[in-house]
């Protein structure tokens, strides 16, 4: 009879790594999304070009390859990363590229009349963006950001391939040690699902909180 309690401990450790990756990756993704998304709306061609290149490159190449590049190729040019750093970097940059388009689309969805009100009230470009456009656009972004965060959570499993002990990695360890496939993989399936549900709920409650008083104006 297998001593499951010890193995569950292993899987819970993996869950912590997955959560850590998801949180840190999401923070980086969010930063990249705003940088690149706003960059695509810049007045300056060079800024738009850099933002577009970043988005197209990271959407157009596999996250798997990006991770391997970060972990195995960057050291060759002198940039040594821990597995966690490489994982956060690849996940954040990859998901950030998708989310950048969400930022751009949401900002553009705010009507021209809001921009005109900003000009008529003599707000500067950045003031109008910061106080008028982005707060409204953020509400439009949130549901899709929720999707992006769940995508990121699921994509964290690729880090097991660079020997980072996340959920998927630990499930394989358990399988190798016990010979049992069903129990570890069913367990992590449920854990991934619960984590995704938590993200969903979190985003939805944030959405509700921010949308208070805005009835009838949501895009």
């Amino acid at each position, binding site marked *: 009879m297998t001593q499951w309690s010890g193995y569950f401990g292993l899987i819970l450790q993996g869950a912590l790594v997955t959560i850590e990756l998801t949180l840190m990756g999401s923070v980086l993704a969010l930063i990249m999304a705003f940088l690149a998304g706003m960059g695509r709306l810049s007045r300056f061609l060079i800024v738009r070009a850099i933002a577009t290149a970043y988005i197209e490159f990271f959407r157009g190449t596999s996250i798997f390859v990006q991770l391997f590049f970060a972990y195995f190729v960057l050291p060759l040019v002198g940039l040594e990363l821990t597995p966690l750093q490489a994982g956060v970097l690849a996940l954040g940059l990859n998901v950030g590229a998708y989310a950048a388009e969400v930022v751009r689309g949401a900002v553009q969805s705010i009507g021209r009349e809001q921009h*005109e009100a900003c000009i*008529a009230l003599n*707000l500067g470009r950045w003031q109008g963006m910061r106080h008028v456009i982005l707060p409204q656009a953020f509400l439009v972004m949130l549901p899709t950001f929720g999707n992006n965060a769940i995508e990121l959570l699921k994509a964290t499993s690729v880090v097991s391939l660079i020997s980072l002990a996340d959920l998927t990695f630990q499930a394989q360890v358990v399988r190798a040690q016990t010979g049992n496939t069903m129990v570890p993989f069913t367990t992590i399936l449920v854990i991934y699902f619960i984590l995704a549900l938590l993200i969903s709920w979190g985003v939805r409650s944030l959405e509700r909180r921010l949308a208070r008083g805005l009835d009838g104006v949501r895009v």
Partner: protein
Amino acid sequence: MSTAAPIIKVDAISKSFGAFKVLDGLSMQVMPREKLALIGPSGSGKTTILRILMTLERIDGGHIQIEGEHLYHMERNGQLLPADERHLARMRQKIGMVFQLFNLFPHKSVIDNVTLAPMLTKGVARAAAEKRAMELLDMVGMADKAKAMPAQLSGGQKQRVAIARALALQPKIMLFDEVTSALDPELVEEVLNVLWRLCAETDMTMLLVTHEMGFAHDFADRVLFFDRGRIVEEGKPDEIFRHPKQERTQAFLKKIIAAGHRV
């Protein structure tokens, strides 16, 4: 009044949207404190000139001066250069605008709508901005809704808040772009009453694009009739509404009266 300098001087400006020439060598002058009504068929350019004065549209040619200073040009060493953003921002301080569709900020409460611009653009402290905002909201009869969100207000209430918001920056010139056109008929009066108060209690120069001919008649010092990007006829309200000289003015007014507007 004839000896004073005009506060707005528009000199031969033109503006096209694609192939459509919406303003065609338009010139006009407005004196300080003057109340002007701009009337005419849609597409005649009357809204466009307001939008140009608010720098929401750029001109293709001509010059505009506000208080003797170029709006779209800067004088540098005797040369006229295109205005940069800083010049425009400084010129915009003189001008405020109220829109047909209110354009309130839906995510901000009534009072925050009014205090936002003074705090950001003039560095007014929150307490002072709110005190001033409450005075203005009181003047437009909206003080009791200061904490409400725009979505909770009627069209007439939204427009009164929008007027207070524009007033908070203390512009010398106020532009009203069909401010009652989007309102249900029973809500028009509450907004017009606010305009009357502004007229009586402030010395702002006011330009009003409107289809409310009765109001234009009573309110304006001078009426400009626009058609096809030009001012076809101008004069005292009585002259324009009772004794229009131009055929196009007569035809327009006849159509308006047939549509049930009071003159």
